[in-house]
């Protein structure tokens, strides 16, 4: 079924299977992560002169949305430094497979499972977004908290509980990984069914049993299962975009919530960061003041009531129009697949407008990461003010149109009839027009 298995080519197989290449990249990202924290705490308080702000919010955040996720799904998670220290302790070594070593290894409480907390975390980032995005020390503190939280939770809970249930980045990458063209899957299910040991499940830091993988949302592409399987029965496939989205896959209500939070956040961030409304920006910045509470209220009304309300209405109508009726809860979960291409492309369009205009800040902070007036590589130059050009606007229009095409296709595929798909198509179109209006209107 139109898959290209990377483990069948010798050099890609080596790169994936050997622990060293991945470790070396992760060592670099870990060093970069710690350097970023230091730069944010010690360096210039002016965001645009500080490595922390520019690297986290311009370079990395852009790379995540324009490169890592659309071409590699959770590929960022496979080189992410955040869980490394905790995992070393858990495994009792740096290049070790998973094993029972230190840590209490408790199971994550049932009532905290699912994507709810990740969605909540993402909403917090949105509520405090303007200050995080402009203040290097706040960015550093957020990164530090994430690093420490991941470490402490790794000591108390089993496997990557932080990644699975808390990390807001993980919520983002996991949701959109379903649309991405990479997957880990078993090659031959029959071999698995005769293998009682399930070495892959034992080794998987994410608690995934590869044989049961239907969606790539929970697989962190860490490649541990490949390394322990005695029968070489795991494949890393390149696949068509959107492979996990279809009538058969199972989805739950928390995914719908996460998808809606992401869509609302893309709309809100476009309004705050790219709109002409100074009052809104200042209210979002002035944390704790009356106007900030007003802003927070507005944000929560949009993210928790308005967008979910319209979505629920659309799903309810779709359900009415269908031949077999589902209960509303199930339908809300099922239709949430439409939110995946919709949100992903909305974020990509936002990023093109937001970050490409500011890319000229990146090279200067490489030479002067702390904003102390260094010029290590001679790349310091006065960044131009940053423009959005006609090309960038055309690109945004095309990306949004592709997103609408894609989400309409998903809506039709998962519905019984075209008529039943219409409400979700209308919902997608409304979102897209909203994004268009905010970005280029």
């Amino acid at each position, binding site marked *: 079924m139109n898959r290209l298995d990377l483990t069948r080519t010798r050099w890609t197989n080596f790169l994936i299977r050997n622990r060293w290449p991945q470790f070396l990249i992760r060592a670099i990202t870990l060093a970069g992560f710690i350097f970023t924290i230091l730069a944010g705490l010690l360096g210039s308080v002016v965001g645009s002169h500080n490595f922390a702000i520019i690297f986290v919010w311009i370079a990395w955040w852009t790379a995540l949305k324009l490169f890592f996720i659309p071409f590699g799904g959770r590929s960022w998670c496979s080189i992410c430094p955040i869980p490394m220290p905790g995992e070393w302790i858990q495994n009792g070594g740096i290049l070790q497979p998973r094993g029972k070593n230190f840590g209490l290894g408790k199971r994550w409480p049932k009532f905290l499972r699912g994507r709810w907390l990740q969605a909540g975390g993402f909403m917090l980032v949105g509520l405090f977004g303007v200050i995080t995005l402009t203040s290097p020390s706040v960015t550093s503190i957020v990164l530090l908290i994430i690093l420490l939280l991941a470490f402490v939770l790794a000591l108390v809970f089993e496997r990557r509980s932080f990644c699975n249930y808390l990390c807001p980045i993980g919520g983002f990458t996991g949701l959109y990984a379903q649309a991405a063209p990479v997957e880990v899957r078993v090659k031959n299910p029959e071999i698995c069914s005769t293998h009682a040991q399930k070495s892959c499940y034992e080794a998987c830091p994410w608690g995934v049993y590869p044989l049961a993988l239907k969606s790539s949302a929970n697989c962190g592409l860490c490649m541990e299962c490949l390394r322990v399987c005695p029968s070489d029965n795991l494949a890393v496939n390149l696949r068509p975009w959107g492979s996990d989205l279809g009538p058969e896959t199972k989805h739950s209500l928390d995914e719908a919530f996460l998808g809606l939070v992401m869509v609302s956040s893309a709309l809100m961030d476009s309004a705050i960061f790219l709109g002409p409304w100074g009052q809104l920006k200042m209210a979002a910045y002035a944390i704790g003041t009356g106007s900030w509470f007003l802003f927070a209220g507005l944000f929560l009304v949009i993210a928790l009531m308005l967008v979910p309300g319209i979505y629920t209405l659309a799903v309810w109508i779709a359900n009415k129009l269908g031949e077999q009726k589902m209960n509303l809860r199930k339908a809300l979960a099922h239709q949430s697949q439409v939110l995946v291409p919709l949100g992903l492309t909305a974020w990509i369009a936002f990023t093109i407008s937001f970050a490409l205009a500011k890319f000229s800040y990146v090279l200067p902070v490489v030479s002067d990461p702390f904003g102390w007036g260094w010029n290590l590589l001679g790349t310091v130059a006065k960044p131009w003010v940053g423009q959005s050009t006609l090309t960038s606007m055309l690109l945004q*229009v095309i990306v949004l*149109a592709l997103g*609408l095409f894609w989400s309409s296709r998903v809506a039709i595929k998962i519905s019984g009839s075209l008529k039943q798909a219409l409400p979700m198509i209308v919902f997608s179109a409304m979102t897209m027009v909203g994004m268009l209006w905010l970005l280029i209107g």
Partner: protein
Amino acid sequence: MMEELLSTQEELNHQSLQTKWRLMVLISQCALLILFLPIPLVTPKPIDRLIHIDATSFQFTPAEIKVNQGDRVTIEFVSTDVVHGISIDGYDFQLTSDPGQPVTGTFVASWPGMFRFRCSVACGNLHPFMIGKLWVGPNLILIRGVLLGILAVVAAIFSLKKSKVLKTGKTS
């Protein structure tokens, strides 16, 4: 008999593939037309305009300006608190004002579309997001975007319709 069936099946597949390709080519042509077809517009006779813009951290007032294509626009720009600047995306236009010191500059609005203008002097935390919008003539790219969206929905419907016909054709 069997062979005949097989060959018609193959032909059907072949045909549907062909129509699919044709459809794709047609849709991309429509998309290109929507994006790039020049639309002749009657632009009103260019006039001279004087626009006063106040800059306060971190807001331009007014932050939304509309002019017609070809207008000679003179901006009188004054900051009311700290040093602010103004530069317009896509135009070679830049002014800097010390607090309370108005400056003026003129440009001809020769490019149509929506252009953000931004503060060009680092003026504080929210400086990178101090933004206003200038519209020159009707915002064609927005209209093109909406049309492209409609085409996208139509394309999605047709791209799946064909395969459904094929599927039912197979089972019956």
